[in-house]
């Protein structure tokens, strides 16, 4: 086991539509276990694009991506799905919960997909995660019966269900008011400091960023500082 959970190796990314543009240039950095890192930069500088590559959802890039020391370059679609399921928890700006299932089941789904535990165990873990986020009372509601902040916390609980190597977020607080943003930030920090969870969060909120352990700043598809 290395201490490095994620490593970007000379990543270049082009978009071809309508004309060929380079949106990421030679992106290189690594993340250590338990590190709470934020990515900042102007709108359109390529933060989301980078995050989709790091989360293995986008495979159309040059360079290499290593998660847990293993290269993702030549893995099949189903193998990448397995990596996302087991090692990555993703939190979006919009919560993306399935309204057909209860809050509890939404949290459980990635766990059931991994199927390393029995449904009973997954259920109790899901309850535990909801409790950490303070919304265990809403477990049996449908997602569309929750407030925006509550939904985002459900999404975080879902990201946690398989105890991932790393949690990624693309402006997870972008859609929330001050109070709720504050709450989500506190949750993230607690995860990092108490549970030694690695986090990589894209944000526009400079105040948020400055309270994380480490800031990666981007400009025009390049990393300009990764203190």
């Amino acid at each position, binding site marked *: 086991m290395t201490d490095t959970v994620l490593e970007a190796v000379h990543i270049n990314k082009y978009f071809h539509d309508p004309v060929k543009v380079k949106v990421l240039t030679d992106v290189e950095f690594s993340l250590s276990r338990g590190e709470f890192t934020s990515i900042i930069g102007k709108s359109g500088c390529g933060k989301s694009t980078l995050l989709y590559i790091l989360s293995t959802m986008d495979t159309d890039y040059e360079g290499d991506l290593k998660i847990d020391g293993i290269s993702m370059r030549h893995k099949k679609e189903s193998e990448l799905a397995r990596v996302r399921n087991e090692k990555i928890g993703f939190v*979006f700006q919009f919560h993306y919960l*399935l309204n057909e299932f209860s809050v509890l089941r939404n949290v459980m789904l990635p766990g059931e997909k991994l199927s390393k535990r029995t449904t009973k165990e997954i259920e109790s873990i899901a309850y535990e995660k909801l409790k950490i986020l303070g919304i265990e009372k809403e477990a049996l509601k449908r997602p569309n019966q929750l407030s925006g902040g509550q939904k985002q916390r459900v999404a975080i609980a*879902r990201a946690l269900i398989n105890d991932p190597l790393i949690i990624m977020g693309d402006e997870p607080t972008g859609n929330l008011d001050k109070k709720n943003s504050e709450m989500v930030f506190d949750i993230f920090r607690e995860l990092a400091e108490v549970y030694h969870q690695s986090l990589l969060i894209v944000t526009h909120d400079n105040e948020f960023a400055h309270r994380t352990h480490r800031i990666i700043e981007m400009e025009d598809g390049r990393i300009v500082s990764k203190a």
Partner: protein
Amino acid sequence: MNLKLIGDVAMSLLAARLKQTLVAAIGVTFSITMFIALLSFMSGLNDLLDGLILNRTPHIRLYNEIKQSEHQPIALYSKGIRQYNFISSVKPANEKPQIRNSGAIIDAIKKDSRVSGVAPKVVVQVFYNIGTINLNGIINGIDVGAENRLFSFQNYVVAGNYMDLQNIPNSIILGIGAAETMLVDLGDIIQITTAKGDHVQLKVVGFFQSGILDIDKVQSYTSLATAQKILGESNSYITDIQVKLHDLLLAPAMAKEYNQLFSVEATDIQTANSQFETGSFIRTLISYAVGITLLIVAGFGIYNILNMMIYEKMDGIAILKATGFSGGDVKWVFVTIALTIGFFGGLLGLLFGFVLSAIIGQVPFETASLPTVKTYPINYSPTFYVIGGVFSIVTTYLAGYFPARKASKIDPVIIIRGK
């Protein structure tokens, strides 16, 4: 792959679109219902029409044809000599159309394990006398018990008791056409003239109706003994041996075999009635074509609803993929939805198809030519249900496969960016 999880996700999507799902399932139900009803009915009709001829025709008929001897006596004289004989106008020898040694042949055939039954027959050419007028007629002397067992003789006796042929001496069951021409009733005595010119009186104990007018005008039945008596022959005089087999398809080969073995003429049912196969085949083909067309239409219904579902649930699919469901999992979710619709729609269709064909089977259907048929004929063969079931699953699978493949290829990045 986690089947339960995939099933759960599929069912929740299905429940969210219950109305459209039901419409799609009803489409399958309707087409399977029609498929079953149509095939059961058509096949019932086929059986009925084939039965008209096939059930009444022996699978193999042995008889003795009157023909010129292949070996003329002069050939014996000219054998080994350089001499050729040309004989014109060769006549057959004066012999009767009987099968020689018939008792031994019947015993031998009865022992054959491929044979389900044997019935001997004496065919007599006669004239029915009506006053001074003579009508052509054929009287079949039959073994009443065997004839009934092999050819359901009693089904065609529309008046009187068929067993009377055996119990009452000098009795006859007249073809209904002949009886109408002669204006006779049950119990009347009719007179016939044999080919030799003998007059014989027979008591009418029943009427016979085959459904084929030309037969009913000419053919009549009497017992073997009476027929032999009319001809003045001994009780070993048999003109036809009718053989029924367990497997009809063996008939051509066995006819050849018997021909060699017993030195008698033998014809098989396929050669005698080849056109019936064609008619049945066409009717069956039409039923399948209609059934499959209906199913394809239902398949398009399923295709539509799945496409709609996928379009509506893009976000859900994206999130499933982002959280670790593979393209294959997503594909199975939608294939499962399609198969569920196909399975339950098809199951109901089989049930309704059974009910509908049972209803059709109750509709009165009476025609003079089919005395034993009172309602529309239905064939309740399980084969149709198996085929219907398999078809519904296969069509819905195909209808679901293409939308499902589309769903599996959805790129979550595009969806998530789109927000």
